[in-house]
Structure formats: C-alpha cells, structure tokens
C-alpha cells in the first residue's frame, strides 16, 4: 500500500501541472496513466502538431509542451505509474483506497481525475465475430513476435504500426496487408518499402478492402474481406492484426458513483471537487458552466484543485498563499539555490 497525499489519474498536461501545484504547496502525489508514456492526448494524438494557445508560449508541439511540463515537476521526484489504470476507488475511514489494474494500491485523502476523455484503448474490428478470438488470434498489439513465425498473418491498417509490422513480419511470416484506400498515412519510407515488398511478392497488398467476417472452428482459419462495391475475398489466416489507432473510453471512471453529464464530470468551480468528498476532476473530463476544453483552463483547474487537496491532506494546517518569486519555502521545495 502506497500512502500519499494525492493520486492523480492521467499524466496529460493538466495532471502534470496539477502535480506541479501540489509540489509547490508541499504535497506529495502519485500519477497513474494507462499509456506507456507521459503526456496524454498531447503525446498520443498530436506530438508533432503545433499548439498556439499556451500563455506566453507562442508556438510549441504536444511533445515539447509535455517535455517542459516534465522538466517543471522534476524537483519534486513524483512517481509515475504508467501502463496501468485505476480500476477501483473505495472510501475507508475518510481515505480513498485506490486500486489499479496491475494490482497497485494507494491510500490517499485525495484523488484528482485528470483523465481527458478517458483512457486510450486500441480501436477494435467492427465485426462481432472477431470477439471470440480477441487476445488469441485477433490482436491489436504485439508482445511476442515469434508466435507469427511461418504463419499466415493478415494485417489491417494504413498507419505506421500496420506498415512497420507488415515489413517486420514479412521476414518470417506470410503477410497480407489490407487497407481501406490506396493512400497510407505511415512514414513515406515505410510506404515505399511496402510497395517494394508487394511488387516482389514478399507480401500481398490489398487496398480498398475492409474486414467482413472471420471464420474458424475453435481456432481462426480464414478472414473474409469486402470492398465497397460488394466484392469479397476469403484469405487463409492464422492471425489477424488490427492497427486502427486508439480510441478514448471513459472505462471504470463511470462506475465510481460520480455524477456524470454525458462523458464529463460536473464539478464545483471553487476547488474542482466532484460530488464525492476528496475526489476532484480537472481538464477535459470536468464540466461546469462556461467550461472551455483548453489546456490553459486545465492548468487553472489543477491549481485550484491542488489547494482543495491541501485541506484534506493537512487538516490541521492552514493553507497560506505564497508567490514562487518570493517564498523561500517554495524555493526550497524546488531545490533553487539562492
């Protein structure tokens, strides 16, 4: 059991800046995110896209913003728990017991949900019949590539994951790459390589087709694909891989007894607390009259939520407002030498 002042769910810009604010006022926190890297939507959806509306930063990419936020909280040495997801929140004697998918447990008076629009999960095939093969022969990520050796593998998708794996697996498997259109969004060098492999018949490249059905008797045997014109083909397959990017799912957050308005959590704008004492929501996941889904709003929300957390983490102390420019206590926390 890890005891801490605050558990932050979500390592996007809002969660990171909230951590900074907690550090400034002398609280400890642990940050959980189900991605394998820090940065949330900024790093997953638009690492290279320029952002123009961060105050005092005329232009930066999602990745640069993330790196700067990580730099800013470095002095506090907070722990990140990546590739993990908070599954359960339980109240015990005015503390929250937080349990994750990987079996970690936290005891904390405060939980800050900075979960964006939920956790990222791979988009799955639209066809119901694929479900019974999920995790066995229908896969959305690859942990052990040796299982594909000498097997027939059908890969769906047109982005870098699909292309990279098609190229990689073509060394030792019979690969068919299926994509819904002729253009690919993967890196130009990979697209060129795929066309070469297709020209010399190392891989089968089928475009303007998508999945229709999978068939098998216990184990997967074949995949039926369809074109928009109604043509269909059946291809023998041992494995089917789908790389359609990530979608965001609210997931377990919906089961914690919090008020929900569509996919957002209503909060009180004084401290961004939800209907549950000690549970705060900030960033894209919270809603209130006038809510703007901007990173800068998330920063503001995180700063106020941090002060809200102080009350429960240090019930016997009075929170004192201080400026970073003037406070020697804050400078100590930041490790600034004067």
């Amino acid at each position, binding site marked *: 059991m890890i005891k801490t002042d605050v558990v932050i769910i979500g390592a996007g810009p809002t969660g990171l800046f909230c951590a900074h604010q907690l550090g400034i006022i002398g609280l400890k926190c642990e940050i959980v995110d189900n991605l394998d890297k820090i940065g949330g*939507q900024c790093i997953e*959806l*638009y690492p290279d*896209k320029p952002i123009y509306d961060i105050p005092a930063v005329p232009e930066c990419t999602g990745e640069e913003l993330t790196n700067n936020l990580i730099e800013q909280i470095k002095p506090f040495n907070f722990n990140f728990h990546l590739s993990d997801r908070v599954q359960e929140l339980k109240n015990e004697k005015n503390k929250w017991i937080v349990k994750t998918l990987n079996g970690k447990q936290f005891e904390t008076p405060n939980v800050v949900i900075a979960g964006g*629009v939920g956790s990222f999960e791979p*988009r799955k095939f*639209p066809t119901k019949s694929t479900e019974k093969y999920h995790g066995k022969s229908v896969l959305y990520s690859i942990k052990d590539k040796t299982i594909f050796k000498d097997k027939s593998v059908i890969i769906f*998708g*047109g*982005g870098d994951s699909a292309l990279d794996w098609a190229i990689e697996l073509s060394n030792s498997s019979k690969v068919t790459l299926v*994509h*819904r*259109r002729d*253009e690919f*969004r993967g890196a130009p060098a990979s697209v060129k390589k795929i066309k070469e492999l297709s020209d010399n018949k190392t891989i089968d490249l089928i475009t303007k087709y*998508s999945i229709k059905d999978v068939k098998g008797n216990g184990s997967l045997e074949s995949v039926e694909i369809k074109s*928009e014109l109604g043509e269909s083909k059946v291809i023998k397959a041992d494995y089917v891989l789908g790389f*359609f*990017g*990530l*979608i*965001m*799912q609210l997931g377990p957050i919906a089961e914690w007894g919090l008020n929900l308005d569509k*996919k957002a959590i209503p909060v009180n704008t004084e401290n961004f607390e939800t209907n549950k004492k000690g549970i705060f929501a900030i960033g*894209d996941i919270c809603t209130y009259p006038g809510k703007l*889904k901007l990173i800068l709003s998330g920063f503001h929300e995180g700063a106020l939520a941090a002060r809200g957390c102080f009350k429960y983490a240090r019930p016997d102390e009075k929170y004192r407002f201080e400026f970073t420019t003037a406070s020697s206590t804050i400078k100590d926390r930041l490790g600034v030498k004067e």
Partner: protein
Amino acid sequence: MAKIKYIEFNGTEHEADVANGLSVMEGAIQNDIPGIDADCGGGMSCATCHVYINDDEWFKKLPEKEMGEDDMLDQAFEPKSNSRLSCQLIVSDDLDGLTVHMPEKQV
C-alpha cells in the same frame, strides 16, 4: 444559416438550423443530437464525429478534405469512401439542406 439533417444509424431523423461558421459536428452537439461523440472537441484528432454523406451530389459539393482528414478517417468506425469528419464541415448557406448519416457507433 443552414438546415442540416442528421440521421442516426437506427433511422431516427433530426433537423437543426446551424449558424454559419459552426461545424456540422457543433450543430449536433449544441442541439443534443445523439450519434456524434466529438471526443477531441473538433481538433481532427479522434475520428468520433464520423458521418457518411450518402448523396453523391452533396459529397462532391462539400469542401474538399484537408490533409489529415483521411488519415483520421482510417481510424474511424467502418469508414467508407463517402465518409467525412463532421468537425471539418463548416456550415455556410451553401450547406443548406445537407443530410448526414451517422455510423452504427463512433467508438
């Protein structure tokens, strides 16, 4: 202003007067029309405001896709050649009478 018709996958029809300058996605969200999620809020980065333009004439009449829209549509639920992201369809008088069909689901 344009009258936009939104048809859910189950056939339920909704009509909304959408002000010029808003996107077809915003027209749906502001009028509480179900079937369009718009998780990213219009940033062309999530593919959850995906619609079909079943009328070929209308499809051709719409402003062309900008770079990146098709890449995003690759990641949508059952994209077709008449798919668009409704956050990229900016309403003007020219769009009066447009009908969009929603996919079975967005995520």
